[in-house]
């Protein structure tokens, strides 16, 4: 059955409540006299409902994830006994501070005014930064976290690592990154274009959703260049590496995806690559500045505004 484009947009205005009341009433009258028009309206409503199914799917997935992660850290005011915990923590904190002050040679002498505490910074994303050595252009060549684990011990003692892994120093930047980072849209990647057949990406996606990030990397690596799922698999790998806090490896994979020139993957990848550099700030300041300049210069880039905002936030915490 053909579709009259003009009528399509008229029905759309009706269904989306964009018609003035009088026009809407007239439209209803026409519907009551014209069964074909009424059926076209029903069909378009079904089409809109399909969009709602997608929104609902995403929300259900989010809620399952939130449930696993636990509740957000807000609490209702009053009617709780958090003050008891608060006092306990305060006492414990004071004890630890006193101990550190006594043991530290450069610490304040007893009775001396302590230095004002730094603004508390979230350590939730505090990294164990791997040393960035090779940054391959081909995402498939980026080593996995698992491949690195053999070097972990040596890296722990590396002066470069020492320099980069200033947990408290980086925590501010990581907190900013945490505000901007958008997790992999697994729901959107799942089942894409497979017409009901087994999803080839299912193994990688399931591992990712179960937070088995190393498994996700391994599963994603099974898709070689030339495979039609390659870019999507690489996107999963890049996010998995990000979750593993291997920001330099993640950046390398995102960079290669961005060079694919395939929207929207390349644009998302450019943004995520920038976040990886922000996570490694100030060690990766040069890369961050270059990436930021590129995104902020491109007003048509889908992540332009976010990049501007990110630049401001990073500057603010410097």
């Amino acid at each position, binding site marked *: 059955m053909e579709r009259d484009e003009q009528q399509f947009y008229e029905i759309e205005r009706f269904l989306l409540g964009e018609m003035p009341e009088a026009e809407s009433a007239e439209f209803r009258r026409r519907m009551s006299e014209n069964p074909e028009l009424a059926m076209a309206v029903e069909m378009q409503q079904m089409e809109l409902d399909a969009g*709602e199914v997608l929104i609902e799917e995403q929300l259900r997935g989010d809620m399952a994830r939130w449930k696993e992660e636990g509740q957000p850290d807000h609490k209702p005011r009053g009617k709780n006994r958090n003050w008891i915990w608060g006092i306990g923590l305060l006492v414990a904190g004071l004890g630890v501070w006193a101990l550190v002050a006594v043991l530290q040679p450069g610490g304040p002498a007893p009775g001396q005014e302590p230095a004002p505490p730094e603004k508390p910074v979230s350590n939730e994303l505090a990294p164990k930064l791997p040393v960035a050595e090779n940054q391959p252009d081909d995402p498939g060549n980026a080593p996995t976290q698992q491949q690195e684990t053999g070097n972990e011990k040596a890296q722990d003692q590396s002066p470069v690592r020492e320099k980069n892994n200033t947990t408290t120093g980086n925590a501010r930047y990581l907190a900013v990154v945490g505000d901007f980072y958008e997790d992999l849209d697994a729901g959107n990647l799942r089942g894409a274009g497979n017409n009901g057949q087994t999803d080839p990406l299912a193994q990688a996606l399931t591992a990712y959703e179960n937070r088995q990030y190393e498994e996700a990397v391994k599963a994603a690596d099974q898709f070689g260049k030339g495979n039609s799922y390659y870019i999507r698999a690489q996107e999963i790998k890049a996010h998995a590496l990000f979750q593993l806090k291997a920001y330099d490896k993640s950046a390398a994979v995102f960079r290669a995806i961005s060079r694919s020139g395939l929207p929207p993957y390349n644009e998302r990848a450019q943004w995520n690559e920038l976040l990886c550099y922000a996570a490694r700030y100030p060690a990766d300041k040069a890369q961050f500045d270059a990436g930021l300049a590129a995104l902020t210069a491109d007003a048509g880039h889908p992540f332009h505004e976010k990049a501007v905002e990110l630049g401001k936030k990073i500057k603010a915490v410097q």
Partner: protein
Amino acid sequence: MSKNLWDDEALLKALTGSEMEREKGLRQIFGNPEWKNLTLRHVREKGGNEQDGEDVFQEAIILFDRNIRENRFKGDSSLKTYFIAIVKWYWWGQLRKRRPQDELTVQHHDSAQESVEARVMEGEKRHFLDEALKQVGDRCRQILKLYSLRYSMEEIAQQVGLSSADMAKKENYRCRLKLKAFFDNNPGWLNLVN
């Protein structure tokens, strides 16, 4: 995550905002202990168990979100009151399905003062639409979702990497034609119309 509960204005803005804002807003609702406890208590008082309460809470969030986006909330009450009215309305519907032989009176549905009707997507219809969505591809799914979230064509173009709002409009129309083709080939959809 903010340590304070959001006020109604902030919540409304978030639910009709960008995907990131929506996620933050919805997560606030999901983690709101007061709204959840009120839901659990109502379901318990009306014959349900703890699991029913959990399920109703999640379904109510979905319906609440949809109603807010569809401008069904007229601002006659606080969002909390509105949410709980949806909980009551939804649970009442569930009870009617579970106990059709019982005479459920208005005492079971004590939210008569609130007009909270919401469009519930029934299982069969959802299944049919899932099948339809499998036919349209990745980009179309993304476009259809953003369009339902009332993103402008410019924003859709940006999100999916199209060069202009015009291109997004054409692409959206093309995606809709794909759905239509599926419906035309599966005329049973008419039986699923609410």
